[in-house]
């Protein structure tokens, strides 16, 4: 019997939700487990770095890597996996575009460390001790990875073959991707494994989305009684659907919550946030600057709203400070 393809799962700056999504395959996971040989999965199985390091280059068929890249250790791991694997799939919003962790790119490294180790309520650290790269304790040297200046997407660090979008990717997309990989039926390298449309195309509320939104006010979900049928943007809620890729089957709008953009943009959009500004804000109602500004005041946190999952992929890459 020929060897089953070897598969690795790895996580970097991740919440664990992407791992959960794999487990969410439910019975289908058994089919996957039967078809492949898992050689690394830190969340579920006990493998050591040395086990992977000892494998020949290109001996792993596919490595699924989730989470953003913030530390030197994560860089080392993903570079090693790139060497060992024939194919790397960037798994989930954090790996694809920085995800939630990339919102930290609005702050300097020093600001973050100072807050976390000194100023954060609940921290009791009068000597202002900070983690050190190297500490000598009783003659032994203990080391820690380096905390980088910014959060990066996986493809800023290594070459990526395919992307699975979402926070986390849906079981349906994961199954489809695994099936395509096992069958060797894959689209061109670099493809995002989800339909290349905007979310509005698969949203049940689409028919009630007016051509001219003419919004006079933006509201937050808790401030309105949401009509369960009508387009959420048309109700004055910031729904990222127009600038977000389809593939989740519009689950959030279906659950009466506006899309927050976790699938990233379609292939025709270079910068999700800028494109959203372009399409939606052109169509607010007022014509005078001060009235326009009053409507814009309804978006208190533009970056957190337009780049919630993708600040690493903003054309400007991070806040300049």
């Amino acid at each position, binding site marked *: 019997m020929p060897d089953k393809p070897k598969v690795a799962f790895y996580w970097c700056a991740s919440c664990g939700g992407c791992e959960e999504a794999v487990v969410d395959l439910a019975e289908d996971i058994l089919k996957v487990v039967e078809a492949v040989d898992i050689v690394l999965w830190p969340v579920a199985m006990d493998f050591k770095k040395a086990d992977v390091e000892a494998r020949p280059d290109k001996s792993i068929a596919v490595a699924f890597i989730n989470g953003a890249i913030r530390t030197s250790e994560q860089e080392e791991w993903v570079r090693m996996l790139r060497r060992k694997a024939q194919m790397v799939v960037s798994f989930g919003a954090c790996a694809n575009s920085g995800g939630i962790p990339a919102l930290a790119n609005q702050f300097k490294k020093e600001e973050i460390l100072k807050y976390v180790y000194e100023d954060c309520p609940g921290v009791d650290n009068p000597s202002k001790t900070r983690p050190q790269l190297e500490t000598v304790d009783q003659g032994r040297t203990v080391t820690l990875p380096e905390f980088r*200046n910014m959060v990066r997407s996986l493809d800023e*660090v290594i070459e990526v073959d395919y992307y699975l979008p979402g926070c986390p990717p849906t079981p349906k997309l994961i199954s489809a991707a695994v099936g395509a990989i096992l069958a060797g039926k894959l689209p061109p390298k670099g493809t995002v494994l989800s339909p290349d449309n905007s979310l509005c195309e698969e949203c049940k509320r689409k028919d009630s989305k007016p051509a001219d939104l003419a919004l006079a006010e933006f509201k937050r979900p808790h401030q309105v009684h949401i009509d369960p049928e009508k387009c959420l943007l048309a109700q004055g809620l910031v729904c990222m659907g127009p600038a977000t890729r389809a593939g989740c089957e519009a689950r959030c709008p279906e659950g009466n919550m506006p899309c927050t953009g976790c699938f990233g943009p379609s292939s025709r959009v270079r910068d999700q946030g*800028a494109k959203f500004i372009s399409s939606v*804000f*052109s169509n607010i109602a007022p014509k005078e600057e001060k009235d326009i500004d009053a409507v814009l005041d309804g978006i208190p946190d533009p970056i957190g709203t337009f780049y919630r999952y993708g600040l690493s992929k903003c054309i400007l*890459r991070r*806040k300049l400070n």
Partner: protein
Amino acid sequence: MSKHVEPAAPAQPGQFEPRIVAFFCNWCTYTAADLAGVSRLKYAPNVRVIRVMCSGRVDPQFVLEAFAKGADGVLLGGCHPGDCHYAEGNYKTLRRMRMLERMLRDMGIKDGRFRLEWISGAEGDKVRTTVNDMTAKVRALGPLDLPGKFAEWDKEIEELEARVGSESAPEVAHAR
């Protein structure tokens, strides 16, 4: 146009010369820039003009891309409100650029690096005063140099890449 504006200060040797990308609409501001040229109005040579059919054609992505490719400033010129060749294009511009300005501020791009001006086809002199004024202001802000910053940011990962890349892989292939 009676407002007196200092002519562009003559470039001093070694002085920072900002690069400003200007998107001018075909019907008004580009015509005005043409008029300024025909009228031999002298203005700072720091703008590179890109003609677009309407200021409303300018996607905020273009502005970000210009900065990312090395522009120190981005100027957007269109017809005065009410004068748009396509009726409403410049209102769309105004609304989306007000939002973009907020976002740029939050991303640490200083006010003055991006500017939106309405300049009609007859206002050749306004092209001159706007360009001179913006050049002076961006010069005072200093270089933005995003390409340089990007390279600087990525240095921290290159060093490790060089080290990891040089490690040799084991030679014996074992089956499992």
